[in-house]
């Protein structure tokens, strides 16, 4: 498998827009708060990152601002298992 295909395996914004969420890797997070600061909805993404919990929040629009802005690659999109298993 080429590196390109490997990279493509990662769910992107379009895949998860309706059926996924943002998942943190708390070991990478230094709680700087850029994610929460840039969330247009005002979700405290940083608190999720501290607890290592996915951002499952009724108001999250998976716009990807937090994922894109995080300077440490803490956040990534992941398809929600229930409906989207295998699609990502």
């Amino acid at each position, binding site marked *: 498998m*080429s590196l390109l295909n*490997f990279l493509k395996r990662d769910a992107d914004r379009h895949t998860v827009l309706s059926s996924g969420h943002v998942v943190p890797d708390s070991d990478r997070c230094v*709680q700087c708060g850029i994610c929460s600061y840039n969330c247009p909805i005002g979700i405290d993404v940083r608190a999720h990152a501290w607890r290592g919990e996915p951002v499952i929040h009724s108001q999250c629009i998976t716009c990807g601002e937090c994922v894109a802005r995080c300077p440490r*690659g803490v956040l990534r999109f992941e398809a929600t298992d229930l409906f989207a298993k295998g699609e990502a």
Partner: protein
Amino acid sequence: MRYVIIGFGVAGIAAIEAIRSVDKEGEIVLVGDDPHGFYSRPGLAYFLTGELHDKALYPRTANDFKKLNFHTIRGRVTRIVRDQRVLEIEGKSPLAYDRLLLAVGAQAMPMKVPGAELEGVFKLDHMEDAKRILAHVRRGKTVVVVGGGITALELVEGFVSHGMKVHYLLRGDRYWSNVLDEQESKIVEHRLQEEKVQLHYHSEIVEVTGQHGRVNGVRLQDDKVLKCDLVAYAIGIRPRVDLAKQAGLAIDRGILVNEFMQTDDPNIFAAGDVAQAYDPTTGTSVLDSLWTPARQQGRSAGLNMAGKKKAYVKSAPFNVTRLAGLTTTIIGMVGRGRDEDLVGIARGDSETWRKLPDAIVAQAGFDINRLRLLVGDKTLLGAIVMGNQKLSFPLEKIISDKVDISPIREKLLAPNAKVGDIVADFWTKYQTATVTQ
């Protein structure tokens, strides 16, 4: 039971959370003299560049703290009286403890040249320093930055983002020579030059010159003078061991602790930048100045203080940072020797990174996206991932978990090996195998 924690950093907060997870009733007192309380120290870099407002750097609200049910004493601890288990705090009544955690962090090494006390000379240790710097930055003015590691570049980037003319002085012939290899240093230096940063190699400040108490230039070892409005330095950090030293606790470069984060006094624990923790990988006790180990150590200390035995198992230290705007992950052992620009270690740094034994290097990419692997006999000892970070997570796991890489070792070391592809492929198979097991 009264638990006392000295220090408002992440190790202290993690310890409080851990204590509360075990002991709902015990009294917890947090003591510290930092007027800003708990904030993200690494986030100061983004505050300096203007990406963040300072208020965004505080992860917790008063309400969050209320739930943890502890109280705070603002003040400087001047002495630990061990035989009475009491702390002396400046201007306050003595405070008795049953279990004590020293999570007092580290502080910047001072720049010891004439003129270092002039107004306009800065370090980047804490929130107050960052605010002072931002009160002095002006577009078009000139600053001289000295030092190494991540903090020096955070300073450089901060000044550049405010439109200042930056001179960056290096004592040797390249940046961060005991962590990065020559190619990586060059990539960083090239990017700095693209940002119009003027690099000066083999340069050292011998005097900061000034007029009316304010900086107006620096004199270098060859008598060359650089005119400037500000000077900023990041030449390393030093764990704050004074209290422990006065109390007669065992110290080396930091406070020595066992795997339970316990000092040689069973009632006193240490965690975070001030602690020198045992590293099973190298068989030595090492200093880290990294957020995640500080949090893990704090958690481990808290659990042990509350009577729940939990060893701190040091994993391969890693940091994800931006070097001249380029996202870079440093994992495990990647370099060796010493760097002339730093005394000891810096913030966002680990002594383990420099403990590289004999290893063979596999590398790929010579432009922005670069990958360097330190290949041991059966495992990967370390890695540096610059630019594209997709392999950063798999490599962190492969190195931390000491995954046997024998199946790909030869492939990695073959001439012109597509190192990235090989690792990606290996990781996919490894994950599949682990899931199906």
